[in-house]
């Protein structure tokens, strides 16, 4: 199938982009790796695409004591190849290398992934676990949001139609931080059917576990509880209204158990 007609604007600045997004049916696009298929299948039918991929403000990387601000248009391949400062000791690179395929990673961006808010995508779950936040620009100026506040549900964010994510801030992990990330996919590069990310960073008071790929907003919990209570996962899924199918539960439990196992192999005192 071929895409339905749309118009195209490449704004010169973030301000222009926001102004362009004010028109009815306008839709921002960055790497376009999720939007492109939907355009071709005529499922997405924007009146106009506003291209953010080349905005220099969205390409900047700024390091501070507390962490690193990554421009929203930084690609997965750039993370994979670790060409920018990394506050996570390699976590970002490792995660990026598992997103889809290299040809997709060359164009897909971190900001686009967050704005798309696919519950089975890697970045939302991982950045939730890392305690990241985003900077958002809109007609009313700049605001900052945690990823937790940004993501409301599957494919649903708190972004207004004329707001864009300009950067993602990833806080610096302490040297004692421990990490585990497990996802289960039927095929390499395909969508995950279950995923779990765990960050334990005692120096920063963090002990976070995130369950993703559950076709609703990710579940965020406390790692200590997850480790000490064998029924934690089941209860958390049930509380989220996802307790129906035993076979699906079994997969989530297995993924969470493996993540906890990997974390303990890392020597963490959860």
């Amino acid at each position, binding site marked *: 199938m*071929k*895409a*339905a*007609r*749309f*118009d*195209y*604007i*490449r704004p*010169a600045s973030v301000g222009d982009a926001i102004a362009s997004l004010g028109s009815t049916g306008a*839709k921002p696009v960055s*790497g*376009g*790796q*999720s*939007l*492109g*298929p*939907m355009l*071709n*299948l*005529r*499922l*997405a039918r924007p009146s106009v*695409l506003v291209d953010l*991929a*080349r905005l*220099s403000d969205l390409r900047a990387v700024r390091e501070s004591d507390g962490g690193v601000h990554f421009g929203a248009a930084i*690609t*997965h*391949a*750039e993370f994979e190849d670790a060409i920018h400062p990394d506050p996570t000791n390699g976590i970002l690179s490792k995660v990026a290398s598992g997103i*889809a*395929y*290299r*040809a*997709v990673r*060359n*164009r*897909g961006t971190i*900001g*686009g*992934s967050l704005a798309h808010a*696919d519950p*089975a*995508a890697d*970045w939302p779950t991982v950045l939730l676990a890392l305690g990241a936040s985003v900077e958002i620009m809109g007609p009313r100026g700049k605001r900052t949001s945690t990823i937790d506040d940004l993501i409301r549900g*599957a494919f*649903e964010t708190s972004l207004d139609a004329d707001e864009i994510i300009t950067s993602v801030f990833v806080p610096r992990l302490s040297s004692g931080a421990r990490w585990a990330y497990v996802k289960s996919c039927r095929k*390499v*590069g395909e*969508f*995950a059917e279950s995923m779990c990310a765990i960050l334990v960073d005692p120096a920063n008071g963090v002990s976070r576990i995130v369950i993703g*790929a559950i*076709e*609703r907003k990710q579940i965020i919990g406390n790692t200590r509880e997850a480790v000490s209570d064998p029924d934690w996962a089941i209860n958390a899924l049930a509380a989220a209204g*996802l307790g*129906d*199918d035993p076979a*699906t539960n079994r997969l989530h439990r297995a993924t969470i158990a493996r993540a906890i196992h990997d974390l303990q192999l890392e020597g963490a005192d959860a």
Partner: protein
Amino acid sequence: MTAVTLILNGTPVTADIEPRTHLGDFVREDMLLTATHLGCEHGVCGACTVLIDGAPARSCIAYPVALDGCQVTTLEGLADDPVMAQLRDAFSEHHALQCGYCTPGMLIMARDIVLRLPGASEETIRDQLAGNLCRCTGYMGIVKAIETVAASRLGLAPVVTRGLRGPDRPVDPFLKSTGQLAAPTPTAEPASPVAATVALEPLVNPVELSQSFTVPAEPDVVFALFQDPARVIACLPGARLSEPSEGKTLKAELAIKLGPISATFAGKGTLSSDPVTRSGVIDGRGEDSRSATRVRARLSYTVASDAPGTTRVTANVAYVLQGPLAQISRGSIARDLANRMTESFAKNLAASLTSGNAQPDATQAPLDAGGMVLTLIKSWIARLFGRSSG
């Protein structure tokens, strides 16, 4: 059409291109460069892989209009490339192709692998090839051929390309297309009027769910509200009456939105009720004309007194969805989201009742990802796009 200049296989090319034309179609149809093959046009199979600013990318989900000033290289443009020559030779030597349809995309990906990962192992190569499907060879020859060339580069410095991005390329300030967005869409002939459905057809194999909730009003008040199509519809996120209703039939639209996808189901319905049992049925059917997807839905309700001054509403929803938007895999998300839709309806109903006669905001935006129809689309999207992002 938009004037775009690409450096195509090393030569600047300027062309008027519709924004919707993807790069694969552009090089094949307009430039007659047919090495680039289209296998799925939704970014999965990899047959259309080309180099954009030196890095492999799917040409079926890249649009020339967004690539102004970029370098695009197809297999034809690598005819004299020494690494490609080595790969061509290895592909033939190891019988890495049969029908040859995936081969151009495979070779372009292979070139990136051997350049980026000299000495790559079989396991690494298989992993790196995940995005390029071959239906003939079982990958044995392909993997072996790439392994051989990668091995020959062992010790050489990796050559990593990611494609140039943003500021390192001159930007045409506020490039705006002159696309013919307003191209006239032929208008459908007026359909012959169809008599309002009287007897309710049974729904075959519907998706069913039910919810029960209380609202702060007397049963008679609640039941009365259900007899007023304008107020009922106003409680449904994204719905509006398309013309005034006389109370027994209605014409309405339901707009739904899921990320970048939106659909508008226009249709009609009938209302029937029994004041004695304070129950009723609202039955409707509609179609999203652009996607030719049809929905039939039925809301059966009963209202009964609960605690003093409150009423318990029991709502059973059943629906059937058919057409392109239904041609998807379904997941556990359905019930969750359909319940959210009902929850939202209950909330609006309560608001409508507590604020006296004031109706909920009739112009409210469709509940993002809140429509029942979306529950079906959503898991499909998860499958389709869960792999990628941004």
